[in-house]
């Protein structure tokens, strides 16, 4: 019996102790009419060996390709120690650290994580992770509504340069509580959100303004101007940031004259594999004054009976298991393992390493854009500074180009057409530190072929 240790003798002795005749008897409180005898639709058991073979065969069909997509998930080198340690049984198979004394390892790791994320974002406090970046923005918006007591409108301005999936996810999660997310258009030349575009909202009751840096197009927003404008309206500033970029870019805590109020984002770039989309983790940090409005777990350092320092979950009164219907969020299980991976990642990279990764990403993307835009029919959609992504415009239908590239082993980018039809046949491309000049050449060569073939057709 896979994973079940009972011998026949065990079962007999145990049933005797219970005073039950057989295993079926243990279900005698379930109405007979509901009991089922078999489970059509679940195939018969396989041995680990058979499942292993199956999985290897399936994996074989999903073989490695040269990836140039970012759009919210980024391919970075993951140092070998990260997962070697994260998958240790004591980390992998532990529960949320409810019994602090038996979970000091996990709790200390979270405390270290909170310290790193607070510093990286330039904020005071951090929680212990949220599900992912997109749902994290929803939590941040809900938090802003609670935190901005002066605002009654629950209106949040969300520029169109914010990741469109983040926007729809926030809509799905937060709109049920009456939040209203209002789009702000971007400048067609620079792909940035201009203060001019916000201006029509001046003087209104706005709860918060979301600013993504670098924005979805990879362009750098003028965060100081935007943050100051928001604060001037009495709105809070919610920053959506890429943690790798923060090694180079001004942290939200230093945006404008007062700094952002809440920062959140996708933690995946910090040591989490792409893995078809998850598990990743969302991070969320804030100014100290908002700590009691934060969703999720928070770890604090305290002392034990002997006065020695130790770690424990704290401020639990915000949480659903204490506050129930009045909790700051319903989140319970979060993404602890990924947060642990990220903590190890940041430890291994350190400030210099992280900065080098960020710089390499920027440099590679510059090289990529430089190479691709020398090709006929390819040009950048926007001008101005960017980080590690860029929108480029093609003179051919994007889907066909992407398919042509895929046939050549290249995952060529993200089709912007669905969310930004106004940009025409546009593609969002990305090169991180993992892409070499040869990789970039290979992309350029393949793209040339695909475009030529399309032209010929």
């Amino acid at each position: 019996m896979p994973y079940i240790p009972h011998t026949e003798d065990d079962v007999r002795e145990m049933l005797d102790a219970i005073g039950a005749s057989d295993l079926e008897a243990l279900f005698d409180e379930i109405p007979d009419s509901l009991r089922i005898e078999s489970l059509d639709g679940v195939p018969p058991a396989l041995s680990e060996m058979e499942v292993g073979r199956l999985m290897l065969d399936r994996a074989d069909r999903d073989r490695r390709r040269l990836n140039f997509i970012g759009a919210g998930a980024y391919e970075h080198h993951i140092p070998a120690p990260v997962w070697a340690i994260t998958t240790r049984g004591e980390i992998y198979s532990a529960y949320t650290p409810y019994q602090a004394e038996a979970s000091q390892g996990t709790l200390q790791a979270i405390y270290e994580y909170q310290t790193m994320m607070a510093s990286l974002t330039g904020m005071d406090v951090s929680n212990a992770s949220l599900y992912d970046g997109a749902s994290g923005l929803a939590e941040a918006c809900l938090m802003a509504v609670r935190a901005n007591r002066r605002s009654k409108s629950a209106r949040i301005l969300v520029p169109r340069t914010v990741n469109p999936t983040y926007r729809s996810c926030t809509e799905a999660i937060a709109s049920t509580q009456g939040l209203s997310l209002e789009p702000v258009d971007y400048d067609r030349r620079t792909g940035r959100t201009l203060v001019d575009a916000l201006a029509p909202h001046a003087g209104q009751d706005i709860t918060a303004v979301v600013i993504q840096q670098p924005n979805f197009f990879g362009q750098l927003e003028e965060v100081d101007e935007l943050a100051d404008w928001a604060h001037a309206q009495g709105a809070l500033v919610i920053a959506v940031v890429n943690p790798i970029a923060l090694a180079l870019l001004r942290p939200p805590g230093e945006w404008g004259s007062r700094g952002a109020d809440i920062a959140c984002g996708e933690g995946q770039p910090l040591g989490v594999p792409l893995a078809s989309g998850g598990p990743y983790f969302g991070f969320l940090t804030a100014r100290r004054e908002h700590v009691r409005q934060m969703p999720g777990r928070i770890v604090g350092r305290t002392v034990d009976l002997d006065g020695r320092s130790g770690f424990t979950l704290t401020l639990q009164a915000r949480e659903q298991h204490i506050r129930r219907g009045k909790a700051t969020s319903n989140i319970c299980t979060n993404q602890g393992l990924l947060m642990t991976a990220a903590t190890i990642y940041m430890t291994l990279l350190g400030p210099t390493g992280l900065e080098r990764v960020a710089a390499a990403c920027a440099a590679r993307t510059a090289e990529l854009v430089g190479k691709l835009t020398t090709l006929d029919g390819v040009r950048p959609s926007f001008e101005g500074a960017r980080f590690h992504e860029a929108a480029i415009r093609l003179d051919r239908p994007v889907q066909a180009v992407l398919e042509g590239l895929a046939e050549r082993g290249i995952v060529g980018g993200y089709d912007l057409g669905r969310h930004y039809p106004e940009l025409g046949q546009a593609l969002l491309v990305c090169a991180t530190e993992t892409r070499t000049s040869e990789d970039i050449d290979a992309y350029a060569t393949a793209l040339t072929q695909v475009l030529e073939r399309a032209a010929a057709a």
Partner: protein
Amino acid sequence: MRTREPVIFELSRPGRTAAAQQPAPAEAVIPGHLRRRQPPMLPEVSELQAVRHFTRLSQMNFSIDTHFYPLGSCTMKYNPKACNAYAMLPEFLGRHPLAPDSTGQGFLECMFELQDMLKAVTGMKAVSLTPMAGAQGEFAGVAMIRAYHRARGDLSRDEIIVPEAAHGTNPATATMCGMKVREIPCRDDGDVDIEALRTVVGPQTAGIMLTNPSTLGVFERRIMDIKRIVDNAGGLLYYDGANLNAILGKVRPGDMGFDVIHMNLHKTFSTPHGGGGPGSGAVGVAERLRPFLPVPVVGREEGRYRWLDERDLPQTIGRLSGFMGNAGVLLRAYVYMRVLGWEGMRRVAEYSALNANYLMSRLRAAGFDAAYPDRRASHEFILTLKRQARERGVTAMDFAKRLLDYGYHAPTTYFPLLVPECLLIEPTETEAKEELDGFVAAMAAIKEEAETDAAKVKGAPYTTPVRRLDDVRAAKQLDLTWKSAAA
């Protein structure tokens, strides 16, 4: 156990690096005013220091791989290593979520089959895998209930009924969905108070959230009555599947008439809890909620698999994650289910029930009080130590802490809130009888200690890296990030 490990920043020295991890320096063109001025405070340590630090930290944890972990409601069963190994094949790890579906047919096939298997075990008609934990599954479920009523123009239904025994995520979720929470009591035998239910249902009822077996560790016997009452009032039934382990292959929420269920794959299907996640809260729905499923879900067309999105499910409640939920968790659950097969599913229920009922019998024989002594335990059960607390001043928390010294992780304490001084004990089917017997012996020994030397129990634990921690101080003198003594 190791007793102290410095905070990583205490090991940090300016200029120290794990150099093998650093790419070559490169020039990034960033306008000066957007550039970071001070580097972030990240640790500066060598690779060995990092490895040693986190390895040592890990040794300061209890975990399934090292300890019996009977944490009620959490289903801490063995997490098969195979699930991890096969989910972490380089091909699966390397694929970008937005890469064309053609590059991920192997993965998508697994997801498609997982959807089908989850339909089969729950008796539901359709499944979406995207919710990232139980609570998000609940959100999806209640949001679908809300969307269903709205789609029918029934805008007044804004109440969700929740039994008082429910997990905190239930009321919290209802609130997040903009609903009002109506709590109803449970009776002394652990079943929901049907009369109370009758009084709260009405045209404002959007639905009821039930956990069955409930968090009281018993099967809700009048489930079909509840179903009828809520149905008649026009409400929908939500099934909190956190306890699905107890009934797998024995009875199906779909057959009980539920409209929507979330499963905690990180419980029932044994994906690891990782010290706090990731989980997966896949949702299954009856036919009438199908159009509202959160996207994406996997579809099959002419033998090819592809993600269905808003264009395919225009009434969807939308997206709950940036991509596709916790894909890697889903792969682990898939492997687990394939190894178990349908026979194994049934055994999960049978042997988790066997272990729970055996442990309850033995503990009662050892002089402990079950909260529901006349009921069968499901896969878990509740002891109440109110007698010990009253007579000796030794609380459930004291027992819990002292158990750590005996090498057992504590059961869930003080949940559900309605049972005083309770321990919610869930042994799971993967524990051997000897382990249960050892736990009984430890409980008996602590009871003995409580009677002869209560202070000893109240001072526990003694053998863990730290002794009992001052939670009040933690919340009052907030110390949430490390600061250098110099600063």
